[in-house]
């Protein structure tokens, strides 16, 4: 009798051996990198809240993580973190969809002018494309514009250095100006309000839109650095809230499925793209939810540590130490339960906002 194609496969192919029989922190041969990342490989990080953990962990492990807007040395570390210094390769804040990153890079290259770039609240002026990087806003619109010009220069410098872009896909829901297509990380009224007459509405990006944006993003990156690599991850946390009219649980599943499928599509069609399964590590049923904090959204420091150890081991890099739990972001998450100060999406739940908006 002929054997089944499932016979004789390596242990990693069988759920019982590879997952059920192993602790969630002891997965083996989970990730086989398609391209090497060495200690000197210039890495640009961007993405959702989870990407902040990636950035800090890689930086803490001594990798060549790009930061073109570093915190001034004289700045109190807590203030620096609150204003998104040292969080990503530049102070762009959370970029939840590839469209946000694509739009930012086009703007930095001078090929895009976002519509309604300055929103207001209580007489203060906010950069609508990264409102949480200055959570109390600016004193004037001119100040916002000058700061954005500096930021775009920093983005250009970061992209110019990058050889690997690690992008953590976070959301499919976003908010867009209907006339121009400009996307914003927060909905009107969450942190600030767009100018009168702006027609900004809900936009749910599907698989085709996400993959198209990823392709365009990769093409744009390659115009500057032809052999640049794109490493995708999917943020493990469910949605804080959905504006889709669906229940937040299936909405979260749909969101993550779309993002995960889009990543798989890109990996399948482009050897310069890889996927690292941080989503799978944190949501592994073997962890029985243990890699989530009590709010069932934020990963625990232990979970992040497992993710990063898998990543570093696969790339034969020095494993991040247990000190991961001591990272500023990890500590804040552990203590506060919510790292609201660093997550725009967090503000979508009014009960989680620090104060009235």
């Amino acid at each position, binding site marked *: 009798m002929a054997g089944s194609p499932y016979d004789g496969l390596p242990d990693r192919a069988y759920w019982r051996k590879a997952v059920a029989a192993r602790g969630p922190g002891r997965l083996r041969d989970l990730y086989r990198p398609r391209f090497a990342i060495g200690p000197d490989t210039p890495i640009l990080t961007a993405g959702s809240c989870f990407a902040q953990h990636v950035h800090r962990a890689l930086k803490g492990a001594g990798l060549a993580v790009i930061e073109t807007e570093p915190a*001034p*040395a*004289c*700045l*109190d570390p*807590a*203030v620096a973190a*609150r*204003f998104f210094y040292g969080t990503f390769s530049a102070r762009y804040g959370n970029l939840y969809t590839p469209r946000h990153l694509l739009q930012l890079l086009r703007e930095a290259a001078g090929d895009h002018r976002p519509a309604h770039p300055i929103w207001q609240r209580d007489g*203060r002026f906010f950069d609508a494309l990264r409102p949480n990087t*200055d*959570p*109390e*806003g*600016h*004193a*004037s619109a*001119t*100040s*916002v514009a*000058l*700061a954005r010009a*500096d930021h775009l220069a920093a983005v250009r410098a970061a992209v110019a250095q990058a050889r690997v872009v690690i992008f953590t896909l976070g959301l499919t829901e976003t908010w867009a100006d209907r006339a121009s297509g400009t996307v914003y990380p927060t909905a009107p009224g969450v942190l600030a309000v767009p100018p009168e007459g702006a027609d900004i509405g809900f936009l749910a990006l599907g698989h085709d839109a996400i993959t198209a944006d990823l392709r365009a993003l990769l093409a744009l990156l390659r115009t500057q650095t032809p052999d640049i690599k794109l490493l995708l991850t999917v943020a493990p946390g469910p949605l804080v809230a959905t504006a889709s009219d669906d229940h937040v649980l299936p909405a979260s599943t749909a969101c993550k499925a779309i993002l995960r499928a889009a990543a798989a599509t890109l990996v399948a069609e482009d050897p310069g793209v890889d996927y690292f399964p941080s989503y799978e590590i944190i949501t592994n049923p073997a962890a029985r939810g243990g890699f989530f904090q009590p709010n069932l959204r934020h990963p625990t420091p232990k979970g992040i540590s497992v993710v990063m150890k898998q990543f570093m081991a696969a790339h034969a890099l020095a494993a991040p130490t247990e000190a991961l739990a001591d990272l500023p972001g990890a500590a804040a998450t552990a203590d506060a339960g919510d790292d609201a100060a660093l997550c725009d999406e967090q503000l979508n739940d009014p009960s989680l906002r620090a104060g009235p908006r």
Partner: protein
Amino acid sequence: MTRLLILGNSHAAALRRAFPAITAAHPDMDLCFWGLPGGAFAKARTGPDGLLRPDPTDRISLRKAAHWGIAPEIDLTAFDQIFLVGLRFNLQRVHSLLHALQPLDLGRRPGALGVSDSLLRAALRAEVDSCLAAQMDRTPLGPRVTLMPAPYPAAAVTQTGSPLYEPLTAGTAALPDAAALMALYEAEITAGAARHGLRLALQPRATLATAFLSADRYLDDPTRDGRHLNADYGRLAFRALLDAAPLSPSAAPAAPITA
């Protein structure tokens, strides 16, 4: 009679020097002074018995206390009002911040990182809170306390080549937006004091030469340093503290209200 304590470091000594004038002008007040030089005062702490005293393990503090001739300890509860004078609110670090960061609503400044005013405020707030938290940890302060920061160094410290020269202070004072930056800083120390339930009196405007600098005529001993001010300054500082504190005779808690 209002029992009033002038408490602080070497900058509070300017008020002590003004005691003859102050007591002559305010015979209704029972004035006391308790202070130590900066480093020693920064180590003085209120013990479980409620008494403030120098660090008993620090010989230098004890020697300085003896040199200043102050009581070995003081009961802060014995006073109706306390004027705490000389906190620096991490002013050296504040100078560094003001050099490094420029609020973009004031325009760009070469060599400085352009930031939102809110970022600079937050950075200043962190320094102010750090200073106040340390002070409150050493000696919990309550609503009877009015603060006055250390006076700004005298304008003489901006003269290059002078032994009094202080490059950091001189640099800040020379910033094109020095006045606006000083206003930001002073707003933060005022708000910081309020967050801790304390009042704060700013350095009297009449004693300033320009932003971040005191007028040279208030220097106590120009041959010694450019920071410590004289009895004339002490008198004006005391006046400003009186204006900030609820110290009218009717506010003095000693006299019970009778029908």
